[in-house]
């Protein structure tokens, strides 16, 4: 009797047995699940919980405040929130469009065969490797109000009569942020598009050429359709990046002047760490997350799997 029990036990822990293999799978995945539960899921639940409490600075383990939707009520009735939504939307559209335009054209350019193409490819995607903060340092100086290069160029090219007040003018500050973000964001699009372009079999082009297709027709009817899936995913990832970016805007303009560059992300951070309204901040953050999820599901639809 004991013999059979022991044999059974030994077999239970014999992970090589096919019927036990799924157990090994769970054991291997357990550390990651525990980590994720501790540093992502639990904090996220805390944040959602915070967003439903009227709380300034929360203390863990302290008595939680009663459930209240006052943070959301405040949000939806405050001008600041709607302005932040509008700024975020503008920035997402401008930066995503700019990044895709520059990224796709540079990818098409280095997809040509020519001497020194490897170097050109490396050079064109180099801004990807420049840390965001360093990019901001460079552009902050180029957008300097008194001695910046861009202001001087604008005068030289006849766009304006005097230096542009990049810091104190709302429109100028918005474009300063947008230009910096495009410079930092387009290489990703370029890298992805180039990978997509190179996976298109060259036979397709050869065949189209035999049939007498012009280079525009080849681009329109071969390149574009086959690039679409990659481009779609890239577009959504770029959009999500702009949506959530903190460092570029925070260091370049701080969200100003007059909140003209304050996105939802900046508003979340400032509500928490500048005005110490953690409850309100959590509410803005949770809404940002919800908007991100809805937007990317809508854009990718059934293809959303490819984004992981």
């Amino acid at each position: 009797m004991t013999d059979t029990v022991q044999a059974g036990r030994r077999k239970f822990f014999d992970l090589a047995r096919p019927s036990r293999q799924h157990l090994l799978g769970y054991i291997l995945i357990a550390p990651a699940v525990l980590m994720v539960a501790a540093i992502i899921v639990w904090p996220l639940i805390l944040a959602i919980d915070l967003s439903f409490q009227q709380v300034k600075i929360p203390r863990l383990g302290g008595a939680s405040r009663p459930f209240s939707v006052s943070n959301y009520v405040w949000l939806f009735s405050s001008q600041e929130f709607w302005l932040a939504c509008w700024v975020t939307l503008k920035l997402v559209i401008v930066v995503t469009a700019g990044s895709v335009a520059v990224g796709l054209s540079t990818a098409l350019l280095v997809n040509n065969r020519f001497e020194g193409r490897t170097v050109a490819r490396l050079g064109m995607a180099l801004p990807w490797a420049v840390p965001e903060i360093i990019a901001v340092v460079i552009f902050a100086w180029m957008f300097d109000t008194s001695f910046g290069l861009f202001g001087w160029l604008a005068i030289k090219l006849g766009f304006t009569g005097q230096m542009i007040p990049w810091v104190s003018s709302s429109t100028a500050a918005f474009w300063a942020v947008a230009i910096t973000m495009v410079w930092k964001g387009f290489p990703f699009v370029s890298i992805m598009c180039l990978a997509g372009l190179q996976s298109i079999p060259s036979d397709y082009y050869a065949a189209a050429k035999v049939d007498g297709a012009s280079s525009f027709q080849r681009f329109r009817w071969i390149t574009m359709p086959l690039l679409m899936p990659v481009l779609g995913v890239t577009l959504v990832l770029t959009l999500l990046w702009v949506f959530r970016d903190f460092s570029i805007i925070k260091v370049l303009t701080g969200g100003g002047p007059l909140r003209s560059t304050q996105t939802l992300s900046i508003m979340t951070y400032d509500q928490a760490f500048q005005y110490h309204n953690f409850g309100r901040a959590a509410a803005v953050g949770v809404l940002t997350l919800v908007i991100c999820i809805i937007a990317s599901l809508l854009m990718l639809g059934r293809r959303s799997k490819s984004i992981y």
Partner: protein
Amino acid sequence: MRRTLAQSLALYATVIFTLVMILFPVYWLLVTALSTTDELYRLPPTFWPDDPQWDVFARVWAAKPILLWLWNSMLAAVGSVALSMLVSVSAGYALSRYSMRGGATMGLFVLTAKMLPATLLVIPLFSIFSSFGLIGSLWTLVLAHSTMIIPFATWMLKGYFDTIPKELEQAAMVDGCSPIGAMVRVVLPIATPGLAATALYAFVLSWADYAYARTFLVNSPDNWTANLGITTMQGEYVTYWNDIAAASVFIALPIIAIYLFLERYLVGGLTAGAEK
């Protein structure tokens, strides 16, 4: 496809023009570092300093604890990459090899985690770290950066493991290897390029962080990372752009070097999910 001479010239002209436009800001950073303050505050700007101040690098290195900042960034990056890879490798392997209940949920979760704004997560993390007395310590960054790395690394590694045929481990197990032995001795060595790509990409992610460092470490100058340190050089009234530019060169250099020499791996990581 043969090109005529005129077409070749046009192509080269376009490539060079585009490269100059794109790389100009990086060149401008160098020019700014090498200029004297007088030159910087003068219009029209000088496109190459009359007397390049090469000693600016030595001066800034001595005046600011740049080595300490770089070291802290390195510690945070190595720590978070090591911790994340440890759990992600086995999780990615499990997701690739075993069909588990909840596998699809896991995918959906990775998607959500990828969309999680750092500015939202930083709020509860701040309360958690405060109550554990961790604020000001580099451990906060190790954990916070892991929240960015684990979801994407697990999924990326699953993709790499998927490309390695299952038959290899089955053969090893027939020869008497345990399942764990087969993973460690057969699959992991083959997956080394994938592991390297994931780790490198994770390293770059950690190195780029500013939001977490600013929130958790702002009052502990000894633990400032490179990105946080450099923003403190931006003065309230006067900013010495040549000094900041020189410090920026030090901080950007490690990542640019990684990019130039290991670009193949990094790009492999970036495009891993997109081509499927």
